[in-house]
């Protein structure tokens, strides 16, 4: 395995009863790249992310993170190894401020909420970490705003900030642009583009403008299997991918 590969799967399979949601998937992610996973709804993309993040165990196959097998570890153990994830639905605490949401994520990562309250040193680390990720996500001006009072786009940015607060080196992002208007999408796209110096990103997204702007490589899944994997330009012009996913026309304008 090449040294610059941080995450790889080999024969990864997940069955739900008779349904094979992920079927012998081999793919790999290189350090500091944005690797997009595309595919029709029901192709197995979110299940793949759930397998990588430890939320569900595989039926067969391996997940290698920095060349060590991690399949079977819990989501918490995998998060501690440096793999963070965001979900399709916005998962924030609406009554807490933007800063408090990030502090909570950092606290949980640093050893549990109660334990970290007691240590002044940890509390300072938590606070610094939360401030830092808010700045990275350009939300520092909203630090003391209650999350429920923020726009939908800002709430999605906050969710990314909360993942960053857990100090990952690799982030699994499940449709971070879902439900966003054009301007919000552009803002989050630029945010993600700015992260690649420090992080590796695996991205599920249906907004093709963002995917083609961001991704270095793309893996396309259909019916649980890998249809094609390669550099973005190869996937963009692939007839197979056009037939099953992209269609054969330009996308319309979105608000």
């Amino acid at each position: 395995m090449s040294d610059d590969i941080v995450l790889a799967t080999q024969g990864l399979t997940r069955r739900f009863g008779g349904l094979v949601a992920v079927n012998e998937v081999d793919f790999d992610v290189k350090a500091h790249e944005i690797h997009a996973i595309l595919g029709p709804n029901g192709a197995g993309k979110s299940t793949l992310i759930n397998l990588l993040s430890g939320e569900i165990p595989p039926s067969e196959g391996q997940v290698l993170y920095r060349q060590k097998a991690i399949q079977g570890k819990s989501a918490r153990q995998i998060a501690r190894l440096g793999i963070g994830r965001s979900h399709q639905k916005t998962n924030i605490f609406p009554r807490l401020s933007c800063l408090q949401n990030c502090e909570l994520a950092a606290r949980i990562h640093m050893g549990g909420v109660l334990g970290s309250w007691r240590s002044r040193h940890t509390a300072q680390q938590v606070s610094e970490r939360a401030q830092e990720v808010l700045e990275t996500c350009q939300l520092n001006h909203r630090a003391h705003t209650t999350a429920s009072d923020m726009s939908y786009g800002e709430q999605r940015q906050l969710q990314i900030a909360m993942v960053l607060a857990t100090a990952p080196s690799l982030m699994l992002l499940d449709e971070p642009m879902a439900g966003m208007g054009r301007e919000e999408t552009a803002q989050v796209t630029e945010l993600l583009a700015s992260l690649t110096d420090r992080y590796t990103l695996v991205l599920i997204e249906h907004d093709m403008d963002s995917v083609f702007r961001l991704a270095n490589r793309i893996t396309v899944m259909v019916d649980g299997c890998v249809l094609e994997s390669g550099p973005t330009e190869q996937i963009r012009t692939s007839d197979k991918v056009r037939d099953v996913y992209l269609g054969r026309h330009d996308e319309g304008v979105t608000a």
Partner: protein
Amino acid sequence: MTTDATVTPLIEARGLHAYYGESHVLHGVDVTLMPGETLSLLGRNGMGKTTTLKSILGFVPPRRGDVYIKGVSTAKRRPWQLMRQGIGYVPEGRGIFPGISVREHLIMAARPNERGETPWTMERVLDTFPRLGQRINHDGALLSGGEQQMLSIGRALTTNPDLMILDEATEGLAPLIRDEIWNIIRTIKATGISTIIVDKNIDNLLEVAEKHLLLVKGEVKYSGDSQGLRNNPGLLETHLGVA
């Protein structure tokens, strides 16, 4: 836009003011929809599009203002009673029950229209959405996002509505599935069913809907036809970010 005074509007909402707790969300919104018309609600996230729909349907009853469905006031009536006046609702998030099958969703909702007719049978819904036929015995939880959306639309059609309300009908769907949903919306329109649509694809909305309502912070900034919007690109740019 002129309307024929002799025809009763399907929806007539006047001066809607809606609140979530103390938060004043709608500020005097007017909506008129005539039979056979397709109306889009435009605006950025958080501007009041979904709340307008929920106010019309009684989920968020307006504190001030009046709503009439087919000329009948909705005051003090429950959402399910309003739906029985011929409204099919496809909510944001789809509203699919995870533990019951596709077939059960379609049987559960089916009823004739107010005239006793059943143009949309389960068979016709399955002809329109062949993928649902392939998944007929699968529970809602096992359906993909696109299949759930088709089921949500199909379920609304089995109520044989005069008006379909679709809130973010194509959100979170793959490009080809989005195309399929838009084609189905065109088919629904061609059958004469009125439609109110919330979506983010402006091109498709300008093509499919003949009337548009642009909401900004709970107020109507534009009410008119597609040509009026096309002639006013500044409006789209300022309030939707579409250059």
